[in-house]
């Protein structure tokens, strides 16, 4: 019997939601690390019992937790994220130089093949790697020392590296995204990085060919087609078919192309999901209606999915790391809201039901597909 384990990070702790393959009845475990911000949890594809969690606090800094038993028990791992050498400066909000300062881990990306190898995307933007199960961390400093890094500026949430995608066919190729520097790609395991932002346009950036400075909110790919990457930008839903060499817009008939999350159906590489948000000034869904939009054509042609979702007086947001898909035969889709609801669909978005309604604001959602 197969099942799923949904890993939910919130403003005040972590929750683990489990169900069998029917995905109708759920057990809720938590809060784990009560009172702390849990920016992200993610399990290892190589060993589903191995889960890593980023536990942070404005008071007490960064803790990195590790579980070896599927989230039943946890132990603190290494939390020393020291920039390589003497970090320089990036630009502050007012355009003045500002020293690089570590704040927190936004995103954890375990290796696809080795449970002890993990990448961490952090604020201020950098990527770290551990090869000993998160006991020690080394920066892949080629990114932060990129020739453009001195021009990077933070988005409203900070200068955060929030997305890491590993090419399933070539582990030396990875895509990352930084708010508000843009997207970058490495082809040598993280030693060197190339900005991949051609085709992105932003009203706030006067130079239409700006190499960096774009506020990329999220990237997603299907494992079978790693050269095709989808992007939810601050405004605009974008797509590349050549590994980021160029992007084109696929916002199409979306009611608004502002948003944070984007994800890809686990079995249909051209089926993608977004949650449109009204605007960058009003971070909630349009018209008081919570709707996921699905495109079965890789963008441009979108349909609203609302069956089981609130359609009046709803003013939640869905943050960038708060959507995930499982890989059961009928693809499950999950997302969490700033109102504390976690919704699940066992049929690729046709029907939705809340798993939980009253958690703290949800920061991240990941799902593990488990076999008995």
């Amino acid at each position, binding site marked *: 019997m197969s099942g799923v384990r949904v890993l939910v990070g919130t403003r005040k702790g972590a929750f683990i939601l489990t169900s069998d393959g029917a995905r109708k009845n759920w057990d809720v475990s938590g809060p784990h690390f009560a009172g702390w911000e849990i920016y992200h949890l993610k399990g290892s594809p190589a060993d589903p019992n191995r889960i890593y969690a980023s536990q942070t606090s404005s*008071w*007490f800094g960064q803790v990195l937790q590790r579980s070896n038993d599927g989230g039943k028990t946890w132990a603190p791992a290494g939390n020393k994220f020291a920039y390589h050498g003497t970090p320089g400066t990036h630009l502050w909000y007012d355009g003045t130089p500002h020293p690089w300062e570590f704040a927190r881990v936004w995103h954890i990306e375990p290796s696809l093949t080795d449970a002890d190898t993990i990448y961490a995307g952090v604020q201020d933007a950098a990527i770290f790697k551990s090869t000993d199960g998160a006991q020690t961390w080394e920066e892949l400093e080629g990114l932060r020392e990129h020739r453009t890094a001195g021009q990077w500026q933070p988005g409203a949430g900070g200068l955060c590296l929030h997305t890491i995608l590993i090419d399933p066919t070539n582990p030396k190729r990875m895509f990352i995204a930084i708010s508000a520097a843009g997207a970058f790609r490495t082809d040598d395991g993280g030693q060197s990085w190339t900005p991949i932002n051609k085709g992105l346009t932003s009203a706030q950036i006067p130079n239409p060919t700006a190499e960096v400075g774009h506020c990329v909110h999220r990237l997603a790919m299907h494992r079978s087609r790693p050269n095709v990457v989808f992007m939810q930008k601050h405004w605009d839903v974008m797509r590349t078919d050549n590994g980021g060499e160029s992007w084109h817009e696929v916002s199409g008939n979306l009611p608004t192309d502002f948003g944070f999350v984007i994800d890809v159906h686990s079995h249909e590489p051209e089926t993608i999901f977004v949650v449109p948000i009204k605007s960058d000034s009003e971070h909630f869904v349009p018209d008081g209606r919570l709707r996921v939009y699905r495109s079965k054509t890789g963008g441009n042609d979108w349909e609203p999915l609302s069956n089981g979702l609130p359609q009046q007086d709803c003013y939640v947001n869905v943050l960038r790391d708060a959507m995930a898909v499982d890989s059961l035969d009928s693809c499950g889709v999950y997302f969490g809201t700033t109102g504390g609801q976690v919704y699940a669909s066992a049929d690729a978005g046709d029907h939705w039901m809340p798993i939980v309604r009253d958690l703290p604001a949800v920061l991240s959602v990941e799902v593990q597909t488990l076999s008995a």
Partner: protein
Amino acid sequence: MIRVELPQHLRTLAQVGHEVTVDVAGEPTLRAVLDALEAHYPMLRGTIRDHVTQERRPFVRFYACAEDWSHEPVDTSLPRAVATGAEPLLVIGAMSGG
């Protein structure tokens, strides 16, 4: 023997009660006590002081004998009452935020 009171979140992290004790060789200073505390409880490294700079985290404060020691030089000797174990060193999470 030096007594140290920890805030709730750090007690949970270190899996200890509200007060722990550490031994410090020689004259106890804030730096020496924190070094000993982190040696006993390595999961507390980085939570009270920054890993790299060793500076007190901004929202953490130190109190001893009803006085704020947060801005004292870390190599200043702690009060006699703390050194003898009569009084604890308090590590406090500042009342800020929500």
